[in-house]
C-alpha cells in the first residue's frame, strides 16, 4: 500500500552566520514521516535537532532543500498561507507550555478556533470538550498561573488539537515536568495519536518517549545518525541510554 507522507524533508541544510563564522547546523537531512506516525527526534543540544524541528513546523526556513507538509513545499508559501498552515494543519506543544498568561484555559484553547472563523458558541463547546478529553474539564476558567505544569501542558495539548490538525509538533513536551507528570503527558499524547490519527513529531531528550514512538530519529552533528523502529529500539534501549546519557546532563 502506498504510504501517505504527511511530512517530507528533502536535502535540508541550514547555515547560521555567527559573527563572521558560518555555522552549519544542518548538513543535509532527508526524512519522511507517514501520516499517523509517532516520531521522536532525539539528539544532544546543538545537534541541530531543534533547527530541524522548527523547519518542519514552518517556524524557520531552510538555507537549501525543501520541506513538504502534506505535499506542499512550505518554503514557497507566503505569510498568509503559512499562517493558515499553522492554524489548521499544525498544533504546537512547547517545553515551556506557552499558554497566553492573560487568558483562561478555555480562552487559550478556543483562540485557534476563533482564528479559524468558528463562532464563539461552537468554539466554547468544542473547547470544553477538548479540555474534558485532556482531563481538565472542571478547570476551564483557571488562568495558566493557577494551574500546575502538568495541567498547563494538558491545556496546551487541548489547544494543539483545536482545529483537528494533521500534525502535532511537540518540542520537549516533558522537559519542564517531573518524571511522573511527564509520563502522564506522554501517555496522553500517545492516546491522542491513536484515537485521532494525528501525526506526532516530538523533539526530546526524554527516554520515556522512546517506548511510545513508532520511530526514533537520532540527530548528530547536523545529520541523521540513524533511524530506528520501535521493535529495534526495545532490544537496544539499554545500550542507547548508556551511549547517549553523557550528552544530556
Amino acid at each position: 500500500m502506498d504510504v501517505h507522507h504527511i511530512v517530507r524533508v528533502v536535502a535540508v541544510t541550514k547555515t547560521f552566520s555567527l559573527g563572521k563564522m558560518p555555522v552549519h547546523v544542518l548538513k543535509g537531512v532527508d526524512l519522511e514521516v507517514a501520516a499517523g506516525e509517532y516520531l521522536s527526534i532525539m539528539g544532544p543540544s546543538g545537534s541541530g535537532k531543534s533547527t530541524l524541528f522548527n523547519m518542519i513546523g514552518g517556524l524557520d526556513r531552510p538555507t537549501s532543500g525543501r520541506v513538504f507538509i502534506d505535499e506542499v513545499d512550505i518554503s514557497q508559501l507566503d505569510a498568509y498561507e503559512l499562517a493558515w498552515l499553522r492554524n489548521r494543519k499544525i498544533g504546537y506543544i512547547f517545553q515551556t507550555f506557552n499558554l497566553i498568561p492573560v487568558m483562561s484555559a478555555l480562552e487559550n484553547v478556543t483562540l485557534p478556533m476563533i482564528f479559524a472563523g468558528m463562532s464563539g458558541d461552537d468554539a466554547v463547546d468544542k473547547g470544553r470538550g477538548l479540555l474534558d478529553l485532556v482531563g481538565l474539564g472542571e478547570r476551564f476558567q483557571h488562568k495558566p498561573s493557577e494551574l500546575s505544569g502538568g495541567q498547563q501542558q494538558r491545556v496546551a495539548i487541548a489547544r494543539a488539537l483545536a482545529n483537528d490538525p494533521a500534525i502535532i509538533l511537540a518540542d520537549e513536551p516533558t522537559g519542564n515536568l517531573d518524571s511522573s507528570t511527564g509520563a502522564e503527558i506522554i501517555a496522553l499524547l500517545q492516546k491522542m495519536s491513536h484515537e485521532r490519527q494525528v501525526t506526532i513529531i516530538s523533539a526530546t531528550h526524554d527516554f520515556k518517549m522512546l517506548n511510545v514512538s513508532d520511530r526514533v530519529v537520532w540527530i548528530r552533528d547536523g545529520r541523521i545518525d540513524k533511524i530506528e523502529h520501535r521493535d529495534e529500539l526495545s532490544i537496544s534501549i539499554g545500550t542507547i541510554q548508556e551511549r547517549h546519557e553523557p550528552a544530556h546532563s
Partner: protein
Amino acid sequence: MTETAGRPKKSAISRQIVLPWSKSLSMAMNSLRIRFFRSLITTFSLVLAIAFLGFTLTGSAIARELFRIHGDAAMPLLIEAGYSLDSTGLGITAGPKELWLMVLSLLVCTVGIVNAQLMSVTERFREIGIMKCLGALDRMILRLFLLEALALGLFGAGAGALLGLVVAWAGSFVHFGALDYGQMHVFPLLAEAAKAWGTGIGLSILGVLYPAILAAKLQPIIVMKEEY
C-alpha cells in the same frame, strides 16, 4: 502534486484566518484591564499633556467669549492675563510662549507613549509569538495594539481634556472674577476641549504605530527562544 484538494487558493486564505472585531475589542480591553497599572502609566503622560493643551485652548475660548460679551471693557483684564489681541477682535490667542510650551509638551508626551508602548510590546514578545504560532496574521496583532491605543486615547485624553476645561474655567475667575459670565456660551469651550480630546486620541495612536508594527512583524519562532 503541489496542491492538495483541501488547501484553499491564496486569495481565499486571507478570509480564512479571521479575528472578529468584537473579539479583537474584548481581547484589547482584557489586555488593558490585566495590565491596568502599566496602562495607567502609559496614559498618565497623555492625561497631563492633554490637560495642559485643553487648559490653554479652553482658556483662550473663555477669553474670547468674555471679549465678545464685554467688548473693550474686558481689554485691560485680558491683556493683564497675558492674551494678545489682533485687529479683527476675533484673534485672542495664547501667547507664543504658551504655544511653544504646548507643542513641546505634546512632543514629550508622544515620545513617552512610544517608549511605554515599546516596553509593552517587548513584555509581550512571547504572547505575540504564541498567537502567531496559532495562526494570527500581522494585521490582527496590529489591530489589537491600535485598539488598545484607541481606548487609552479615548479615556486618557478624555480625562485630560475634561481636567483642562475644569481648571481653565475655575482659573479664569482669578483674572476675570470681576466680569459677568452670565451670557457666556458653553459651546465654544466644549469645542476647544473636544479639539484637545481629538489631538490626544491622535497622539495615542501615533505613538503606538511604530511599536505595533514591530509587534506585528514578529516571527513565531520567537517563542522557541528561551530569553523571552
